[in-house]
C-alpha cells in the first residue's frame, strides 16, 4: 500500500511519522521544498492507494476536487474539518458527482481504547447516565500569534469540537445526526460550557483556547506541574500541555473518566499514556494507566479501511459535522456578545 500525504504541516508530519513507523510506504506533497512532490499534478503520476489531505482547511476542497477529477475512484482520508462552511455546497456537489470515491473524515479517537472502555461502562451500567462532560483546553495564544491552527470561518470551534462531539456521541450512544436539532432546541452556552439536555441526562462540552480550564477537573490524578495547572485551572502561555478530560457521572453517583496525557513531561512516553479512573459511591478511586497512540491506531485503521473496503465509503456525517460546527460557532459568538454587553 502506498499512501500520499498532501500538506506537510504539523499534522501532515504526524501522519508521515506514524504511517512510516507502521511500515507503510508514504510519499508527501507540499509546495515547500522538503516534500517528495511539490504539487498534486506531480504526485498524481504516481500509483497511490490512499490519499491523506492534511493541508490547511481552506485547501481541502480544491485538493479533493483535483484528485477526484483525475481519479474518480480515489480513496481519501481528509483531516477535520473536511471543508470551510462556505464550501459546503461544493462538498455536497463533489460527493454526488463522484459516487465511487471513498472519502472519510479523520477521527483521531475512533479507535481509542480509553473511549471504548468508557462507552462499555456506560452500556453496562444499570444505574444509567446522569451527565457526560468533555473538556479539551489548551493555551493556543502562541499558536494564534504564529498564525498556526487559525480558522477564519469557524474560529476556535474548528479546533477540538469535532473530537468532542464524536466522543460524546460514541459514549452517550446518540446519533450525531440529531445534533443540529438538539443544538437548535436544547443547548445553552454559559460559563464557557455548552450544555445540551437530553431527556434524562445532560452533556457538557467545553474547550478553552486561552489556557483556562472550565470543564471537569481532577488535579489529584495528575503529576508534578500538571497537577498544579489543573488545580488552578490555567495553562500558561506557550505550554504545550493539553487538558483533555472525559468524565461520565452515573445516576448512582459513580463517576468514570479518562484523562489523556495526564503525566505530560513527567513520564517517558507521556504522549501515549492515559488514565482511566472510577470513583465509587464511597469516594474510593480506582485508576488504570492505558498506553496507546490513538492517533496512530485510528489513522491506520481508517486508511486500511479505505484501502481494503468497498468503493464509495463515506463519512456520512461530514456535512452534518460542518453544520454542527457552524451552529456551535454561532452559539459561542452570541455568548461572547452577551458577555460584552453585560
Amino acid at each position: 500500500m502506498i499512501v500520499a500525504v498532501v500538506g506537510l504541516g504539523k499534522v501532515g508530519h504526524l501522519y508521515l511519522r506514524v504511517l512510516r513507523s507502521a511500515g507503510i510506504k508514504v510519499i508527501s506533497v507540499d509546495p515547500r521544498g522538503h516534500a517528495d512532490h511539490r504539487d498534486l499534478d506531480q504526485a498524481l503520476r504516481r500509483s497511490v492507494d490512499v490519499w491523506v489531505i492534511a493541508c490547511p482547511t481552506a485547501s481541502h476542497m480544491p485538493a479533493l476536487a483535483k484528485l477526484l477529477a483525475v481519479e474518480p475512484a480515489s480513496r481519501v482520508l481528509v483531516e477535520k474539518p473536511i471543508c470551510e462552511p462556505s464550501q459546503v455546497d461544493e462538498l455536497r456537489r463533489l460527493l454526488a458527482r463522484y459516487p465511487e470515491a471513498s472519502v472519510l473524515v479523520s477521527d483521531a479517537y475512533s479507535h481509542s481504547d480509553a473511549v471504548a472502555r468508557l462507552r462499555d461502562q456506560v452500556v453496562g451500567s444499570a444505574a444509567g447516565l446522569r451527565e457526560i462532560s468533555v473538556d479539551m483546553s489548551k493555551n493556543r495564544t502562541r499558536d494564534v500569534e504564529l498564525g498556526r491552527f487559525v480558522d477564519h470561518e469557524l474560529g476556535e470551534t474548528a479546533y477540538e469540537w469535532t473530537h468532542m462531539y464524536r466522543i460524546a456521541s460514541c459514549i452517550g450512544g446518540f446519533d450525531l445526526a440529531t445534533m443540529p436539532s438538539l443544538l437548535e432546541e436544547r443547548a445553552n452556552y454559559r460559563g464557557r460550557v455548552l450544555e445540551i439536555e437530553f431527556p434524562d441526562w445532560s452533556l457538557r462540552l467545553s474547550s478553552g483556547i486561552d489556557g483556562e480550564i472550565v470543564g471537569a477537573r481532577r488535579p489529584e490524578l495528575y503529576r508534578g506541574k500538571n497537577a498544579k495547572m489543573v488545580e488552578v485551572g490555567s495553562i500558561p502561555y506557550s505550554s504545550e500541555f493539553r487538558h483533555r478530560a472525559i468524565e461520565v457521572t452515573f445516576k448512582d453517583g459513580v463517576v468514570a473518566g479518562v484523562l489523556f496525557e495526564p503525566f505530560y513531561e513527567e513520564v517517558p512516553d507521556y504522549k501515549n499514556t492515559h488514565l482511566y479512573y472510577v470513583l465509587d459511591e464511597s469516594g474510593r478511586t480506582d485508576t488504570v494507566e492505558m498506553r496507546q497512540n490513538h492517533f496512530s491506531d485510528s489513522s491506520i485503521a481508517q486508511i486500511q479501511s479505505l484501502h481494503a473496503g468497498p468503493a464509495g465509503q463515506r463519512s456520512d456525517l461530514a456535512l452534518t459535522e460542518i453544520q454542527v460546527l457552524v451552529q456551535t460557532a454561532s452559539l459561542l459568538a452570541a455568548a461572547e456578545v452577551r458577555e460584552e454587553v453585560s
Partner: protein
Amino acid sequence: MIGARRETRYVDHDPGREPVGLCVMLPGRVYPPGPALFFTTVSLLAHGWRVRQVWWEPPEVIVYDEQDYAWVADQLDLALDGFDGRVLVVAKSLGSLAAPVATQRAYESIWLTPLLTQAPIATALRDQPAQQLTVIGTADPFNDPAALAACSGATVEIPDADHLLEVPDGAVATAKVHVTIAEAVEDWLVGS
C-alpha cells in the same frame, strides 16, 4: 449562480483585415493567456481570425458537474455575444468544459491540455464532427491515452509535458515544447 459574483473580461485582438471568423479563447483555471495561448493567438491573427481572449475568475473548487459545465458554456456564449458566423474555440484545461457544447454546435476547436479523464469531455472530443486539434502532455494527470487515441481530428502528445506544458529539463526544453505546439497549430490552421 457561481458566475454571477465573478467578473469576466475580454481582450480582443483584430487581424487587421476582414476576419475569417471569431475565435473565443478560454483559459485554464490558473493559466491565463500564457505562452501556449499567446503563440496560438499570434498564429490565429496571421490566419485572419479575430481573437477574443476570455479572462475569468473561475470558482476556487471545480467539481466538474453540470453546474461547472454550464458555467463554462455560459462563458463561451457570453463571449460569442450572439455572433453567428464561423466560430473557433481554443481552450486550455478548464476551458475544455466547453467541449460538449462545441461538439453539439460543431464549432472548430483547438484543445490544449483538455481534461480527458472527464467522461463528458472525452466523449465530446471523440464525437466532434468539425475540424479539431488536441494537444496534451504524457505527464499531464488529466491525460487519458485511450481517450486521446479516440479523439477525432489531429492529436499531438508531448513527451513528459505536464498540465502547464512544462517539461522537466528546464526553460529551453519547455520553450521547444511550445515551438512544437506552435508548429502543430500552424499546420492545423493551414489544413483546416
